[in-house]
């Protein structure tokens, strides 16, 4: 089973929920866990799970290299590039790597065979383990625009390991914020999505967008965790009741929790009484997947 932890708004507590959930489940010797930190622009889960990394893989994009001897400046590659990454100048074709999507179209279309492809680094994936958790972290290089390639490569690496081991496991995916392509890349293929939100107008506004994505576009079952919950403020509760969305858990608004997080500690380790709070999320997801009502 694969569960992605997402939100529309950033900073609602995705990583906090993901790392504590992973630790709580693994301490209870439930299924073995894969943890994928797919927030490759700002990966933070390792700061809390402290994995021991023992392997790293560089992620490359293929970019065109034009052999000026062979190129006769016909301009077909320029005309066909949908991303304006190639521009015809007087005596050569100019290439703008930031605009290239690595589709390989220019190489295929060049009648002179003047274009070859060469790898260009966009990021790195590190993997290792933290207690009983197999941990993967992607990191996008500074200045590179698109995280999607790194995210997809991470799932491929995990797939290779799974095929080798054939074990019963649970994959937890810490997604990036937002509702666009990097989130789709992290959520697609998941069996369930945990949407983490907070009871503010920002939280509600962005939760609606995330619900739209999961329910109307990707068609993946999901539930909500209300973080920084204030029992006086019911805007998320009311929305979820109206939309018939299950609430998996409420985590109280507390300076103590914020301080534990600021120290870089796991909530369930700083105060073991929080452990059951996270295990309830896992139990509720299992109930929903079994077709039961919460």
């Amino acid at each position, binding site marked *: 089973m694969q569960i992605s932890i997402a939100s529309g708004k950033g900073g609602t507590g995705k990583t906090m929920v993901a790392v504590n959930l992973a630790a709580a489940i693994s301490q209870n010797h439930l299924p073995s866990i894969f943890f994928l930190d797919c927030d490759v*622009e*700002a990966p933070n889960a390792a700061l809390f799970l402290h994995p021991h990394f023992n392997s790293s893989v560089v992620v490359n994009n293929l970019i065109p290299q034009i052999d000026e001897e062979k190129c006769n400046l016909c301009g077909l590659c320029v005309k*066909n590039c949908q991303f304006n990454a190639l521009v015809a100048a007087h005596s050569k074709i100019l290439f703008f790597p930031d605009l290239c999507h690595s*589709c390989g179209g220019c190489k295929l279309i060049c009648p002179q065979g003047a274009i070859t492809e060469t790898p260009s680094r966009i990021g790195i994936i590190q993997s290792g383990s933290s207690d009983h958790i197999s941990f993967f972290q992607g990191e996008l290089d500074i200045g590179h625009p698109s995280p999607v390639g790194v995210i997809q490569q991470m799932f491929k690496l995990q797939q290779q390991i799974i095929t080798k081991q054939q074990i019963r496991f649970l994959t937890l995916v810490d997604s*990036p914020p937002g509702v666009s392509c990097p989130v789709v890349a992290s959520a697609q293929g998941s069996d369930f999505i945990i949407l983490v939100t907070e009871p503010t107008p*920002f939280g509600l506004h962005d939760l609606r967008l995330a619900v739209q994505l999961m329910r109307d*576009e990707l068609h993946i079952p999901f539930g909500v965790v209300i973080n920084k919950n204030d029992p006086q403020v019911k805007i998320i509760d009311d929305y979820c009741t109206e939309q018939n969305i299950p609430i998996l858990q409420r985590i109280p608004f507390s300076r103590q929790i914020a*301080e534990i997080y600021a120290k870089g500690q796991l909530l369930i380790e700083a105060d073991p009484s929080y452990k059951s709070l996270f295990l309830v999320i896992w139990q509720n997801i299992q109930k929903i997947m079994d077709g039961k009502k919460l």
Partner: protein
Amino acid sequence: MKQIAILSGKGGSGKTSLSAALIDLIAQEYSLVMVDADVDASNLDLLISCKQQTRQDFWGGQKAVIDQEKCIQCGDCLKHCRFYAVRKTQTDPGSSTRFSIDPYLCEGCAVCAQQCPVSAISMHPTRDGAWYQSQSAYGMCFHAHLFAGHENSGKLVSTIISAARQYAQTNTIDLTLVDGPPGIGCPVIAVCNQSDLAVIVTEPTPSGIHDMKRILDTTRHFHIPAYVVINKSDLHLQNTEQIIKICQRDAIPVLGRIPFDPQFNQAVLHAQPITRYAASSPSSSAVREIWQKLKIQMHQ
């Protein structure tokens, strides 16, 4: 005209709350336009109550569509697509295979259309969102909404920033303030491309520090002078000290510290900038001090 970007790396560190408070203070001295560049999840208009004046569709990219009548099931499209967007399905064994495009994975590169031997694939422009010009009490605000699951957020950000700059030029506006998106990827790069200086909002947590370093590397990469604001600064004093040390080492001025203040959250609940909702709160005085220092930097 100067353009100030509010960025953070980490989401939820207080970009929008700080933006709204700065907007309130700036508008008392200068004319300004505002841009909400978090097109995935735009929230600025919730704090500065905007009245929409114009709405325009955003046509960001294109998607491939296979004409099933013309398709000869050769599989060339599947072979050449690098984005796993071509799906091969077979309803039951023995029946014919069907090739189709997953619109969420299609990048719009048109390689499949170019390679298809029977021209069965065509490219169709996609409406990926909408953008708005709205009037607020503080000035004109440009904001946008990228449809859930759609692409080209960087292009949408560039579109609204260009529209804002054009408006600012025509109306001789002093300042453009951009409330940025989280992360360091394409929409952030689109903001960096056109900004004169960046205010980085961070918090004294391991994630806040880690992501501040990444966004500072990014602003350095694009040669944009950066300034740091530490939000929730009293949450963990050692981490706050560490942030100050990093900034000293890298010669990044720290403009100020905003204390952990429940009023900050209350201001959001009451849909107001903190400087309006609780003008005498410690966090409001902190933001006023930040603005005074930013003003000096701006004129240098």
